[in-house]
């Protein structure tokens, strides 16, 4: 949710009221050309559960699936056997279906992924140098954006592995709960622009030694940086940049490859939202951004919708009737009044959610949409995931 757009809005310019197309999950999963599903959206909308449910359904329909989760609820992770944060895909037990499908699950370990990239790219000696540099440790474990970047890095690795070994024919990825859902699309570019940045080049310059680069401007800059963050940080950074120098090209190339992978034919994005103003606004930005980047959008999933009671008693009528009981409350009337108030509350919630969804649909009429009812209990086992998959697939 940003107040200022970086680019113009992409989409139709007038509203075309009418029903939106329902999202067809099974048709999507049946397409053997589909290799990657990315679930994205703002925090707290149920991305992880949605990703896991889609992965399970695909596996039970005969596909060989790996699901990359970012931060699953503990009990869900346990039930899938992926509570260990070890960066290794492990088979999920209890997957049914009549085909040869199977499901592997894993949880992203951001620091470890970063370390592995360094280890695979640098000589052992240099890798050791980098891994022990304080600046590297800080960047790899706490830089806001590393998680997004590493999720994309891991996706690239899984894809490479899948193509080489044929272990999986479908990868489902959950994305980190960013401040903004767009962060994970920007992270690779941000990292490369940092690595390409003038400042980094200035930092590396003294290590390489040409004195003519030591212009007055640069002297002023290093002085200021030293003043602010201290000379020792600057030295750590220079050491890091010097050691990392040969890896920069590789990082940029990988970021570019991942970006192209996301634009490829076999990729499908699902934008996940809740029927709340903020989450839908974020979803709208995301849909527009994906279009602008030519990334294939498969649909919108609206989670946690209040179940619609259908035709019948209006909120006002239910409230008015409930009020009548207030005066002379006995046991039987307490139940009736309570149920009427619940009904009125649900009606109001449904009305509001439908209004919000309609508004989204008016500005994005061609986005296939699935609406999932809020479940009265939390999802923390395969049966729960199966149920979500069912609901997602049957949108009529």
């Amino acid at each position: 949710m940003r107040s200022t757009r970086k680019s113009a809005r992409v989409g139709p310019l007038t509203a075309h009221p009418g029903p939106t197309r329902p999202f067809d999950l099974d048709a999507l999963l049946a397409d053997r050309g589909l290799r990657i599903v990315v679930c994205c959206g703002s925090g707290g909308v149920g991305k992880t559960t949605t990703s896991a449910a889609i992965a399970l359904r695909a596996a039970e329909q005969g596909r060989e699936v790996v699901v990359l989760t970012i931060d699953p609820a503990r009990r869900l992770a346990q039930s899938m056997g992926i509570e260990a944060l070890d960066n290794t895909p492990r088979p999920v037990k209890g997957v049914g279906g009549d085909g040869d499908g199977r499901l592997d699950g894993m949880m992203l370990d951001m620091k470890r992924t970063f370390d592995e990239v360094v280890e695979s790219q640098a000589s052992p000696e240099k890798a050791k140098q980098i891994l022990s540099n304080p600046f590297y440790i800080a960047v790899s474990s706490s830089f806001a954006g590393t998680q997004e970047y590493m999720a994309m890095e891991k996706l690239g690795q899984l894809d490479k592995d899948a193509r080489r070994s044929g272990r999986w024919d479908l990868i489902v990825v959950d994305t980190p709960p960013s401040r903004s859902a767009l962060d994970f699309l920007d992270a690779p570019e941000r990292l490369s622009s940092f690595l390409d940045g003038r400042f980094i080049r200035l930092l590396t310059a003294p290590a390489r030694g040409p004195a003519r680069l030591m212009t007055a401007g640069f002297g002023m800059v290093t002085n200021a940086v030293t003043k602010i963050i201290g000379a020792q940080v600057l030295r750590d950074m220079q050491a890091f940049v010097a050691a990392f120098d040969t890896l920069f090209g590789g990082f940029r190339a990988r970021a570019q490859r991942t970006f192209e992978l996301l634009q490829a034919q076999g990729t499908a994005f699902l934008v996940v939202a809740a029927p709340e103003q903020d989450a839908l606004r974020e979803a709208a930005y995301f849909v527009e951004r994906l279009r602008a980047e030519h990334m294939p959008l498969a649909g919108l999933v609206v989670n946690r919708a209040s179940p619609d009671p259908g035709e019948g008693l209006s909120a006002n009528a239910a409230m008015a009737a409930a009020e009548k009981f207030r005066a002379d409350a006995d046991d039987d009337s307490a139940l009736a009044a309570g149920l009427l108030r619940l009904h009125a509350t649900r009606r109001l919630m449904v009305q509001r959610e439908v209004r919000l969804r309609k508004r989204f649909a008016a500005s994005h009429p061609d986005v296939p949409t699935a609406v999932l009812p809020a479940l009265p209990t939390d999802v923390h086992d395969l049966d729960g995931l199966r149920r979500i998959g069912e609901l997602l697939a049957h949108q009529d």
Partner: protein
Amino acid sequence: MADPSGSGPDFPDVQLHVVTGKGGTGKSTVAAGLALALASRGRSVLLCEVEGRQGIAQMFDVPPLPYEERLIAHGTEDTGDVYALAIDAESALLEYLAMYYRLGRAGKALDRFGVIEFATTIAPGVRDVLLTGKVYEAAKRKRRGKNARVYDAVVLDAPPTGRIAQFLNVNSELAGLAKMGPIKAQADTVTTLLRSKRTAVHLVTVLEEMPVQETADGVHELREARLPVGGVVVNMVRPRDLDTEDRQRLLDGTVDRGALAKQLEVAGIDADDVLVDTLLLEGHDHAQRRTLEDAQREIVRGIGVPTYELPLLPEGVDLGGLYEVAEELCRQGLA
């Protein structure tokens, strides 16, 4: 609820209220409501956001906020104001440089060389120090200057629960990195305020498994970092009209349909089978949800901090809703 009698606020000496919460729990709503609630007690309050989302502007229906304190709500009896400020790390760094180093030209050079962007997006921890540093500056102002306003309280709409301890624990975040230098000195002063009795970190949750778990983890992490935990605000609490026996009967499916239909007729409603079925189904869902919520409420209670409950607003939170939240927070004693 911490103070059902409404005898007075639970955190009278707190100057800096930090509000965090998992995504989707309504932390920004609670932060805004708390700012209004504090102002309603005749105080001058600054509401800050640091995530670049312009959430305050959207909630109060005003144009996007610049890096400048703006009046957004003013009490009718000429007492109590809420000012708002959207803090971004870039502006905070430039302001900091201008204030402490008089870096006029060099500041611009830094920007040109990409140092400002580098320092605020890449250098870990520096961003958080700058954001908390600005909040600190606003909270600690002593005298009214030309452009400086003095606030009785500052409310910070902070990053989410999963990141809050790291965000506030600026010191240790920098520890491995900057061992000296002014940024480190700044982090030290900020930490002194954050760890003092003048600060309280409130956590917003809803009664669902994962947000409650994160809240418990967050409280634990805050305590480990010696940061003062304030209260837990349980948001979007469902109406609790049905008593235990009725809920059990709904779950067991043993409600007397005839009696219910008769009651509905008494209230003037045409109670056909479809309506009775709908009501019973809704009641069943509700009873299931309530069982879950009650279990989660017990866990929240077990955390051992004052709790406050805000009702679910079925029509969403508009400006009017914010004032309802504020009133409820006053009544329960958070403000």
